[in-house]
């Protein structure tokens, strides 16, 4: 089973420290981890640092991954690709990065069909990327990341452009992927109620540091909401016993 732990991870842009000493407990395959925090807290930088796109101090300790670092799949926030390419081609392309022969096998195509179908976007298969709406692009981007069959997935705000139905669909889908296939999924997300509902663990990032991390219900507390988001909120359980954040106002 894949395991991932961060040890004093740091990153800076042009001399400005964006990420400082981020450490976490060990997360295991099968878990969905929400990365929450205010805007410009360093969530995207953290993902890029974990994915190896930027350098910095500290260590990403990855154990039990079949393909080592190659098994980390990163879905960036910026998905504004305007390539003259169909959705199908773009997903095939990400899959072919691993074995870059020109030949395309039927089993590659079958895999793409399965992914597109499971995300409910099979009807988009032969649409041009540039014709897609923001939400459709996000779904395609998820498909592209899945096509590489990662064991760890870093998803930077994958639901920000989706309608409510699609948001729930994607979160539910990722949770199933995690539980059924032992995938470790990190999702940067703003909706704390969705974090409480769909994720097992939460990492709170603010000002470039990890303010708290652990099981969702333990981490998302009235106190941390006050500290990190400057809001007055209550955490209350609904009739089904699921914790909800109820916001009363700003501090």
């Amino acid at each position, binding site marked *: 089973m894949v395991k991932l732990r961060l040890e004093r991870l740091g990153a800076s842009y042009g001399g400005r420290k964006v990420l400082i000493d981020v450490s976490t407990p060990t997360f295991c395959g099968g878990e969905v981890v929400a990365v929450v925090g205010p805007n410009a807290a360093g969530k995207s930088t953290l993902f890029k640092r974990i994915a190896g*796109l930027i350098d910095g101090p500290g260590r990403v300790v990855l154990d039990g991954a079949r393909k080592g670092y*190659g098994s980390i799949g990163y879905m960036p926030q910026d998905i504004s*690709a305007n390539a*003259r390419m*169909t959705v*199908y*081609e773009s997903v095939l392309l990400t899959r072919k990065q691993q074995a*870059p022969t*020109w030949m395309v096998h039927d089993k590659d195509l079958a895999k793409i069909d399965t992914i597109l179908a499971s995300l409910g976007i099979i009807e988009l*298969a032969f649409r041009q990327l540039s014709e897609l709406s923001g939400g459709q692009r996000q779904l395609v981007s998820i498909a592209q990341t899945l096509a590489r069959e990662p064991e760890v997935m870093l998803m930077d705000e994958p639901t920000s452009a989706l309608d409510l139905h699609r948001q729930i669909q994607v979160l539910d889908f990722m949770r199933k992927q995690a539980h059924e296939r032992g995938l470790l999924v990190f999702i940067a997300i703003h909706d704390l109620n969705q974090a409480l509902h769909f994720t097992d663990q939460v990492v709170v990032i603010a000002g470039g540091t990890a303010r708290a991390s652990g099981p969702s219900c333990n981490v998302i507390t009235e106190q941390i909401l006050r500290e990190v988001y400057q809001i007055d909120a209550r955490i209350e359980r609904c009739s089904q016993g699921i914790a909800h954040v109820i916001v009363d106002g700003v501090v």
Partner: protein
Amino acid sequence: MNSSHVARVGQQAIYRTLVRRKRSLLSVLAVLLLLSLLLDLALGPASYRLEDVIGALLHPSSAPDQLRVVLWEIRLPVALMAATVGAALSLAGAQMQTILNNPLASPFTLGVSAAASFGAALGLAFGLKLFPTATEYMVPLNAFAMAMVSVLIIHLLSLRRGVGTETIVLLGIALVFVFNALLALVQYFASEQAVAAVVFWTMGSLTKATWPKLAVTCLVIALTLPLFVRRAWALTALRLGDDKAASFGINVARLRWQTLVLVSLLAAIPVAFVGSIGFVGLVGPHIARMLIGEDQRFFLPASLLTGALVLSVSSVVSKTLIPGSIFPIGVVTALIGVPFFISLILGSRRNIW
């Protein structure tokens, strides 16, 4: 279960059909190129019938002496040079557009052609040799050296922190102005004869084609193409955005500068031999992209073929515009290219790029 199985087979079948369509499109382009080449060979001050030309091509020994000499010594190098230069410039433009993520990138717009013209002008006007060489190769070598200098400047500037692909394109445009100004300066100090030579050179002309020059241009394509072929999936991935490509384990910065070096060779060598022929490097890849998309497995051959076809057809046009004389081909490509260039800028909403 059954219906989803049918749907899956359906998607695969559609993909395979689209791939077959792309292959047929490539074949059609190749046939068109062959026809254009034959037409190019048949046309000229002395006109021959197409079947005589084909006969002389297939059986040179049995052809009349005059036809054989005209065909093999004059027209064949020119016609093949048109296709080869077109292919090289188009491939250069295609990869510039890919790595810089900009539809306006091409050897012409990034200052490579302007730099080459300046280098050539130094030789033509003052006999200045940037390399110790035979006088015959002075102009091409000067042009090549300056073209490489322009690429080097772009590369060095692009290494600076925070310089994005858009900045590189703007820097290229700045280089065009710099080298044009330098070219004007050369012309100001040069003799009248030399100015005429410089002007003719900058218009671009295939009449400078010879078998050795053709061989060198072919060699450059033959050496660079396999390197693009090997990186085909990675280069295509660049078009999904830098972050996405990097997340696939592609070293984006390294891929970009390696490609830039190869592209500079592809752009500089033809320009050095036949002068500044603009817009092929811009138009060729765009036609290829519209026809076939950006999967480099098809985009690479398509760019080669469209570039070759555009310049070959331009060569035919340059012979037929005023019967009996040959128009400078650079003028023809510019006349075709400029309207296309404008339509690109204005029509960006039509998803050409």
